[in-house]
């Protein structure tokens, strides 16, 4: 079980770094969504399914959508 937790934690660190290193905000919204998914996996492995559900709904769906819509609006004005 410990191995699975360490793996999930490593995945979170990896995808987190990818989010930080992504420069284009539109692509960042997608990598952020993947990062949210790995966080969900981590929460499940440490037996926090309630938090995992919240993270799945907010972090992988609502927040990236809000970022995408904002980029589209702001980008249209340039």
């Amino acid at each position, binding site marked *: 079980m410990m191995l699975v937790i360490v793996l999930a934690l490593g995945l979170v660190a990896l995808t987190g770094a990818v989010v930080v290193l992504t420069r284009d905000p539109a692509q960042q919204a997608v990598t952020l969504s993947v990062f949210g998914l790995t966080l969900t996996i981590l929460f499940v492995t440490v037996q926090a*399914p309630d938090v995992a559900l919240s993270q799945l709904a907010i972090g992988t769906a609502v927040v990236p959508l809000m970022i995408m819509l904002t980029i589209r*609006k702001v980008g249209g004005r340039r």
Partner: protein
Amino acid sequence: MSRRARVVLFALVAPVFSVLFVLAARGLPSFGSDFHPYGDRAVTVATVQRASANVVSSVNFDQRAVDTLGEEFILFGSVIGTVVLLRPSPEEREIGHPEEGRVLPTTRLAGYLLLPVSVLVGCYVIAHGQLSPGGGFQGGVVLATGWHLLYVAGRYAALRRAVPQTVLEVIESLAVAAFVALGVAGLGLGGGFLANMLPTGSLGALLSGGTVPVINAAIGVAVAAAVVLLLAAFLEQTIILRRADHQDPP
């Protein structure tokens, strides 16, 4: 702040923070140990006294319900702030016929098929908050995101017409008010604000946990309305509103 100043600030703060953080974490019980004085008490209260099979829900909506009320108002406040900030400015106007994006037939079909499924899942998660992982917040967000499958299917105009924003604002306010009213009812009947004054039922039954399922229902409606309002504010700005001097490309 210049890049150099930021690096200097980081170099000064990082060592202090890491030392203090390690010192603070040394006192914690080791990871995975079975010493959980608070957890043991919370589990006993939830399962033995209040018949709430999902202990997390019991903590959120019964034992620490006041904290959840505060969180509910954080969401309420941020939605009001977003709606105010993203309201149409004087130089913006609604475009008569918002462009219908090109939607693949398979995407449209997936949207239509998944809409009833996600609404059902959302209602299930809200209704079973006292039994299984989930509850009002998670279920509410599932309901709201599921509702936006209509947008994914290319039917934003229909989504906009189906439930007007003013109706959502009223629903949102009523649901938050219902949460507060439950708290006041607890003050009158149970001897404390948000006290669990309803009969708790038997552990594992659909209607168990006293006020937990009632508060979950109120929060489910409040969160669903809040997220729809939030996304509507962004969608209106992106799809419907243009500056008055904006010319659509030919």
